């Protein structure tokens, strides 16, 4: 399964741009289009994944890794295996966003939103492919370090399990942030029974703490 990125949804880009539903001028629409194209041409999505059997106490077989926090345990309650994944848009996208900032900050902000939406699209596409490959078994949504009470420091274990730096060129900072920034790590449960779509609603969202909509008592609508 290769990383796939065919298009970047504009609605998602607008969400990352904190678009509050005011009138969208034609030139901004054109900017979205242009930045989407630029990001699609530049990004080189890569991904790495591995499947592990789940042992009692949520231990991943062949490792000494127990995913951290209570939420992930509940999330994987019904699963016998877990897929650990890491995906990135690559240094190419990172450089595009950074270097554009020096020339045209507005474009850089839109490209940043395009990058965020793009890496989510890569993950969505991957999960679609996985679901097809694993049918008739069932997959959970993605759960990433930082969601719920899963600590960010779980990144270190995931990086070591998948050899993320060597395999797809993502680097982890001392504070557990990933560079390139447009990168995602996640766990996906595998089960014999259908899994609820838990990834919807504010509490399950990776942006829960950061969400500008929620701060104002609104919702982004997902």
């Amino acid at each position, binding site marked *: 399964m290769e990383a796939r990125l065919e298009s970047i949804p504009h609605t998602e880009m607008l969400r990352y741009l904190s678009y509050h539903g005011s009138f969208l001028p034609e030139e901004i629409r054109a900017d979205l289009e242009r930045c989407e194209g630029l990001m699609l041409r530049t990004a080189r999505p890569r991904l790495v994944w591995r499947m592990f059997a789940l042992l009692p106490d949520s231990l991943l077989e062949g490792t000494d890794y127990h995913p951290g926090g209570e939420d992930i345990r509940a999330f994987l309650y019904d699963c016998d295996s877990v897929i650990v994944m890491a995906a990135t848009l690559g*240094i190419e996208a990172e450089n595009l966003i*950074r270097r554009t900032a020096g020339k045209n900050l507005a474009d850089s*902000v839109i490209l940043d939103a395009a990058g965020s939406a793009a890496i989510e699209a890569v993950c969505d596409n991957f999960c679609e492919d996985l679901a097809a490959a694993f049918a008739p078994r069932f997959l959970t949504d993605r759960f990433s370090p930082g969601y719920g009470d899963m600590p960010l420091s779980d990144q270190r*274990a995931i990086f070591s399990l998948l050899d993320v730096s*060597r395999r797809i060129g993502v*680097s982890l900072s001392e*504070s557990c942030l990933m*560079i390139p920034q447009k990168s995602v790590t996640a766990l996906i449960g595998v089960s014999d029974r259908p899994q609820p779509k838990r990834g919807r609603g504010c509490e399950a969202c990776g942006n829960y703490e*950061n969400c500008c909509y929620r701060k104002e008592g609104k919702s982004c609508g997902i």
Partner: protein
Amino acid sequence: MEYDRIVLLDGAMGTMLQAAGLPMGQVPELWNITQPETVSAIQRQYVEAGSRVLYTNTFGANRYKASGCGHSVAELVSAGVRCARAAGEGFEIKVALDIGPIGQLLEPLGALSFEEAYDIFREIVLAGAEAGADLIVIETMSDLYEMKAAVLAAKENCDLPVWTTMTFEKTGRSFLGVTVPAMALTLTGLGVDALGFNCSLGPKELLSLIRELREWTDLPLILKPNAGLPDPATGKYHITPEEFAFELKEAISLGVSVLGGCCGTTPDFIRALAEAVRGSSPAPRAPKVRCGVCSATAAAELGGVRVIGERINPTGKKRFQQALREGDIDYIVQRGVEQQDAGADILDVNVGLPGLDEPDMMRRTVKALQAAVDLPLQIDSSDPTAIEAGLRACCGKAIVNSVNGKREVLERILPLCKKYGAAVVGLCMDETGIPQSAEARVAIARRILEAALAHGIEKDDVYIDCLTLTVSAQQEQAAETLRALRTVKEEMGLHTVLGVSNISFGLPARETITRSFLTQALYAGLDLPIVNPNQSAMMDAVAAYRVLSGEDRGSEAYIRRFASAPAPDAAAHMPTGEMSIGEAIMRGLKQETAALTAAALKSMSELEVVDTLLIPALDRVGERYEREEIFLPQLINAANAACAGFELVKTSIAKRGEKNVSKGKIVLATVQGDIHDIGKNIVRVVLENYGYTVIDLGRDVPPATVVETAVRENVRLVGLSALMTTTVASMAETIAALHRSGHDCKIMVGGAVLTEDYAAQIGADYYAKDAKQSADIAKRVLG
């Protein structure tokens, strides 16, 4: 070490250790001390399989990765050397001190500085040499800058041979975008003993990279591939030892002499390899056919015309001098970006100004430039310390501009070129000045070449400048320059460089003379014209020459250049009609804003233009943003348009040699541990456009740096940003440190996770929910 025979390396270490029971997550190097016999036993299997060079189990034995394991780097390294030595007993084995990546990304993308990286590697090298390693191997690097830090650390702190291998993808680039030519040019220049690839791919995939590599270097080649590509679901590698050995035989036919295995390989792979290569020797290699200079991500290959952009130079440029004096590196970097966009292939970097710390400025400029552009650099200075600072900081193979025929200059500068692997520009002048005849200039060129060769610099890396004199003053000299150039090129077979702009000094319609001279020089054999690439006439002449010389195959680049060109000068005289500055800014129109500002400056003072036109316009944009009538990209576009106006104001002030108008200084920083800086960058643009001087400390900034800067620059407003919940703690720490220092300043904070309450709780004076509010706060605090 002899490379005319095949040298067999070992296979994977990490997976063997895990198979022997090393728990995942433990520092593998710890076993050098706690279970040396297990480490040696694995290595012994490799020796018995045929390995004659053993890599020590020290891949991650650096200060950063091994911290907290209970042993020092020196202990882990010397125990590692002992294990390998013990494993090789009874055999003629070389022990290679293995050095892997630090595990932290270097600047500009990461937080680790080049100098810190050097220091980390130096510690390993000193320990390894002390422990008796026979050579040093630096492997699995994907960052050329980190590789350079390691190579310098090795070469400056011991006399052992140095091998280097990097990790590439199928695309022919490393994860950080390093190309094969860039690796070859840079590392060959730095004087490593052998180079090649390891990890990343299987043998089959790496062969095409080897084919490319050998065109760029004459050094011995190393190949240490994985056992094919891993199965994604299980992580297991798929090819057999026999397949592995079979595919590597082809590498030998390509001239590779040093072979081994990386991830997924075992002693069986090395045994199969040993059997497959028994009795064969590496195929003889043709000399390299390509040369040039490079950044980490792009090479400027010689053979065609390569334009050197001359605009990063303070000579005769008031605004540039002001930027240098104010340490405004961004202004300088913009000149680089501009020239790259205009088609320059190489950037000349001259930041010398009397009274300025040139070495420091050179180092900072080189680092900032290579973060923003892909082009190779030409370090232009007469100060050897500044040249060395530039060469050291440069990631890639640079050019040094320049030496001349003076003995003492040659003796001082050429060793630097050799050490850092730079090409060098030789000016055809000496103690007696610039000779009037072509013959005398060529004679100096010969002397320069001789001296360079004597210092071990390759002929390919000597570029001769036959010197342009002003035609209005010494008319017959134009022809002499061209004659000398032709001789240097054709008879001496050297590459040539020439600054052409000087030719037209003192004449009207300078561009016409300069362009004609450029064209003639190109026909005389000029490889590297130094010009202003922003003058489209010059780049047009180069584009045309590339068609006529056959370099531009099928005229493709030429057609692209002119198919998309706007009608001449349409942009320069855009009608502004009745539009006001306010409207131009609101609509994000840069050129119109600049034109209107220029007009306003004719009748108003700079300060009046700022206070009565630019700032009120920005205020109105900000109000509309607050009312959600426009949104973020439009706000930024407006700020950028205003920026074009402010730039004219600054230029106008610089022309009179006066200090800039500033409404006060503000320090901005994204706090330590956080790398999300886009919000901070937006705030910066808006604040600058309100006329504040922003000292931008960047991202991942330690509290101490914020405090030091605030105190040193006597700043009364500090802005901090943090995006993550985890880094708000570090924001609180920074605020506490500012309070502790007793420095009298206000602190404003912003970032996605913050709220008004939260900001107050961690001791901030103001919470800015967006860029507009930060400008309001600045007005309140600084006026």
